[in-house]
């Protein structure tokens, strides 16, 4: 008597095996799943069908050197990467100081930042902060070269969990008349 009677069940066994295996499964591996003898051609046919069943779904059945495996489609890679992110140690001193200058002195140009820090600003520093969506260009200064003016974004306030810049730690150590807000 046949252990499995229909094609769907055969494909289900293959699917269960492929989804739970840590390693790709070779044709020989998969033939071992069934107590009855199966032709390799039949197995290939079943795998083809299984591949089509998973068309446009989260996983795709692919053939690699050592056999077949299910793998998540590329479009999910960015999501899955978030599960185990590698933490970048810290921002460099240049990045932090540039961010501080933009936050406390905005709107500022790259030239302003260089003047305050006394060193040239690596374009990479500005780019890191722009990619984080913490600063952006809010205009140009009307001087030769029309340099970009940078300011902090709303996203920056959100990430630091404050509602406005006035919640930044103030740097006052002398009595100064303040406008109460």
């Amino acid at each position, binding site marked *: 008597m046949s252990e499995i009677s229909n094609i769907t069940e055969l494909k289900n066994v293959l699917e269960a095996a492929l*989804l739970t295996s840590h390693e790709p499964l070779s044709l020989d591996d998969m033939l071992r799943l069934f107590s009855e003898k199966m032709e390799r051609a039949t197995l290939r046919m079943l795998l083809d069908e299984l591949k089509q069943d998973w068309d446009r779904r989260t996983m795709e059945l692919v053939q690699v050197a050592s056999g077949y495996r*299910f793998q998540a489609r590329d479009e999910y890679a960015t999501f899955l990467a978030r599960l185990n*992110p590698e933490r970048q140690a810290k921002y460099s001193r240049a990045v932090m*100081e540039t961010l*501080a200058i933009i936050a406390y002195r905005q709107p500022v140009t790259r030239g302003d930042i260089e003047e305050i820090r006394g060193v040239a600003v690596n374009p990479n520093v500005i780019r890191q902060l722009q990619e984080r969506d913490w600063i952006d260009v809010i205009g140009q*200064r009307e001087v030769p070269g029309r340099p970009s003016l940078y300011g902090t974004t709303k996203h920056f306030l959100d990430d630091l969990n404050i509602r406005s*810049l006035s919640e930044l730690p103030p740097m006052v150590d002398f009595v100064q008349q303040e406008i*109460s807000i």
Partner: protein
Amino acid sequence: MIETPLNAKIKGEEFTELPKDLYIPPDALEVYLEAFEGPLDLLLYLIRKHNLDILDIPMADLTRQYMQYVDKMRAIKLELAGDYLLMSAMLIEIKSRMLLPKPVELEEENDPRAELVRRLMEYEAIKLAAQQLDEMPKVGDGLYVASAYYQHITQVKPPEVSLGDLAEAWRNVLKRASHYKHHKVGRSELSVREHMSMILRRLKDDRLLEFTQLFDVQNDGIPKLVVCFLAVLELCREGLLRITQQQAFSPIYVQIASDIDS
């Protein structure tokens, strides 16, 4: 009931249960010893095998059976686990106490066998629980969890920055930039700076605004209107904003300085 599963091989011959009598081939002793997990296990085996009532153990019988077994083991294997000998002593003690006449009022609760029975039952329950745990399907043994492959891309989690980190960085900037020392920042200045950016953002979209449009008189309180005005002045001072008026009393317009030439 629970039988000790015995899978002993002696001289190539399979034994699935202990011999009915207590004769044990000399070289098989070690195997039998390993078949039992200890004296409690051996006692349970004897009780179940001889259909003894665990709640009314005939101590004489049980002790005799146990001693025969242990003696034979000792006869051959000198280093019998101390646990077995300890149990022998306990059994003999119980037996002898049962021979003594007991005070009537203590008869019920002071059965010398009580402690032994309690231990046997607890051990039997654990033995059964162990068997059940063993039979449960487990991950890696009868239970198969999904572990499909995915393309591992490393996503670097951006560093965390706190308000303190930011203030610290700004303090460092101030420490080095001597000409900024006199210009430490208070809350009001931060508000002005923030409004400067906000005004620039608005003008980036709207190009030209009437001066009054910069002020939301309906919703903003006086302090905020003042801050907004200071921001406009500061933008002018820094040459970022141009304010124009065609003639006296006509509308005042504000635009980004750079837009005028383009």
